């Protein structure tokens, strides 16, 4: 999927006065990727994107596009184009003039301009809308105009700033798959900024998670979810049960984390972490199983008896159709989130509020986090 490196950020730092918006970020993005910059608001992801577009200059470091240093190149001379959060469609121009504007700036002749603009409008399924004014379009249509306007210049990289945030839920789902297929069709590298983890996981081929100006992790969506490298990433992507403990045993083929809330947690792999140091075991809710309460606790098949099991009481349950969300209170009062798929039509009736249960998870399920 991904080819040669097309963009690299080299030790980029951006300060606004005393606040550091982006802190020593190094990142390489490859040709043909649908890359997503993900993070909570104020994490510096938009600043990073704006530096790539040329609207901000990095305080330190270099930005390379196709191996050329563009750190100080003004935005109108960079081979990147952007779809703005507000779409920024020029209100006093027709749709066609909007789309052709970039070509006009490049000195493309009127006839070719028109032809290419109409082609771009066809690409975003707005053929025939060229004569309209932006105020005659819906929000979704204006976004398509913004897309066509950026794509018509055949940029090396297309930048998208929170592209779906202004759309209503139904349109957002539709645009998600449309943007993905559009990207595959045109083969241009897309870089999308978003605060919505679902959006990033669903669309991107690779994501960078940022927090407080720092790059936390760069990985594929599934790696971000299954192999987070920090508590922040584990918590920001999806929901998680986190258990703090000390790394008591760290052997070649297994490890044991002694947690206060969950007891000893058995892992089927070594950690090579700080022996006797503080670590965290993070278990996703859907990886925890519920069992009817019996006298003997259930045994997890890849862990010795008595590990990765706890007794609890069903405190909350929410039926969501495809799955049911439970909150199980274990000894010490800690609430454990459990998601249970409804595999048959009767599954949601297996457990009821206040019922005594066992919870368990496999030795391969927890992610061990060192920070």
């Amino acid at each position: 999927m991904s080819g040669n490196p097309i963009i690299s950020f080299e030790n980029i730092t951006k300060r606004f006065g005393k606040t550091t918006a982006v802190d020593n970020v190094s990142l390489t993005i490859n040709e043909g990727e649908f890359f997503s910059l993900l993070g909570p608001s104020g994490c510096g992801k938009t600043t990073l994107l704006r530096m790539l577009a040329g609207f901000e200059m990095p305080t330190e470091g270099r930005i390379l596009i196709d191996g050329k240093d563009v750190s100080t190149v003004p935005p109108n001379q960079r081979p990147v184009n952007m779809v703005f959060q507000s779409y920024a469609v020029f209100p006093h121009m027709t749709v066609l003039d909007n789309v052709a504007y970039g070509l006009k700036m490049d000195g493309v002749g009127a006839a070719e301009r028109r032809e290419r603009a109409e082609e771009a409008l066809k690409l975003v399924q707005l053929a025939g809308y060229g004569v309209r004014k932006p105020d005659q379009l819906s929000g979704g249509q204006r976004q398509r105009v913004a897309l066509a306007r950026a794509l018509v210049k055949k940029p090396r990289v297309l930048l998208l700033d929170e592209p779906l945030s202004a759309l209503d839920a139904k349109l957002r789902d539709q645009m998600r798959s449309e943007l993905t297929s559009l990207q595959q069709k045109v083969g241009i590298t897309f870089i999308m900024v978003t605060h919505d983890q679902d959006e990033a996981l669903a669309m991107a081929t690779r994501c960078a998670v940022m927090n407080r100006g720092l790059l936390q992790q760069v990985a594929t969506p599934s790696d971000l979810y299954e192999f987070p490298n920090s508590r922040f990433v584990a918590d920001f992507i999806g929901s998680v049960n986190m258990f703090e403990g000390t790394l008591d045993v760290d052997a070649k083929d297994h490890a044991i984390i002694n947690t206060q809330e969950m007891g000893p947690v058995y892992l089927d792999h070594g950690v090579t972490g700080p022996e006797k140091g503080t670590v965290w075991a993070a278990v996703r809710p859907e990886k925890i199983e519920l069992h009817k309460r019996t006298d003997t606790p259930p045994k997890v098949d890849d862990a010795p008896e008595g590990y990765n099991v706890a007794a609890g009481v069903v405190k909350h349950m929410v039926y969501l159709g495809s799955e049911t969300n439970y909150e199980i209170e274990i000894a010490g009062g800690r609430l454990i989130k459990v998601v249970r798929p409804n595999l048959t039509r009767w599954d949601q009736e297996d457990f009821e509020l206040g019922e005594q249960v066992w919870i368990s998870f496999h030795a391969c399920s927890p992610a061990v986090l060192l920070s």
Partner: protein
Amino acid sequence: MTATTAPVKLKKIAPKTPPGPLEYLRRWPLQLWLVLVGLFLYIPLITLMIFSFNDSKRNIVWQGFTLKYYDKALHNDSLITAFGNSMTIALCSTIISVIIGAMAAIVLWRFRFVGKTAFNAGLAIPIVVPEICMGVGMLVFFAKVLPWPHDLPWPLDLGNIIIAHVSFSFPFVAVVVRARLGSFNRELEEAAKDLGASEFRALMDVVIPHIQPSLIAGGLLAFTLSLDDFVITFFTAGPDTVTFPVKVYSMVRFSVTPEVNAASTILIVVTVLLTFLALKFQGSSALTAGHGADDK
């Protein structure tokens, strides 16, 4: 409303509903007040207009309808010259005011610089300072600092008045344009640059179209301000240059003939028309360029 059943219903219900608690306009005390205020404001102007048609030299008692004083006013050479001067001054000062005012507004909107607050406040001074003070100031300025030569060709002989008028009208333009810039979406400008436009092209292609209604409104405002300014012009103008308001004033000093009324009526009509246009452009500015796209 256009449905066939709706009007019937409305007609039956509308007169019966009692006025709501805040519908003061439907209670008689406020209606009376409204009428009184209207009369107070407009009776003098209406009287002036009516008496411009009065067939009497002294213009105290109504003698009958005539248009001869309009004819007389339009054939009064010095009055026509004064009107031409006023128009020239208003046109020149408007063009200069719009350019300077728009530039001042863009600077205030776009940049942060040392002394910005002072500059902002300084811009408001010509708006709030009493005209008489500015008039005396101009008199001293053109007498001592920059004596204006007498024998310059047209329209340079009006230069001192134009300068004076620009100095009090461009802040109005700046205020109007600045307000309009407040609703400008900066991403539009960035989008233009992103698509390859230089700083200047982005300004011309995106910013100027957005503020265009305010440029027109501000220009019309400057035009009317200049056209009917008396005090400052009176102090600034030399003995040879006479503007329309100054000429009317000098005519009144001899006697208030219907000719003065006729000349004033023409000025009122021109001013009202231009003000109306100015308001219309300013009002519609919220509906046209910019907003459709920014809101969502």
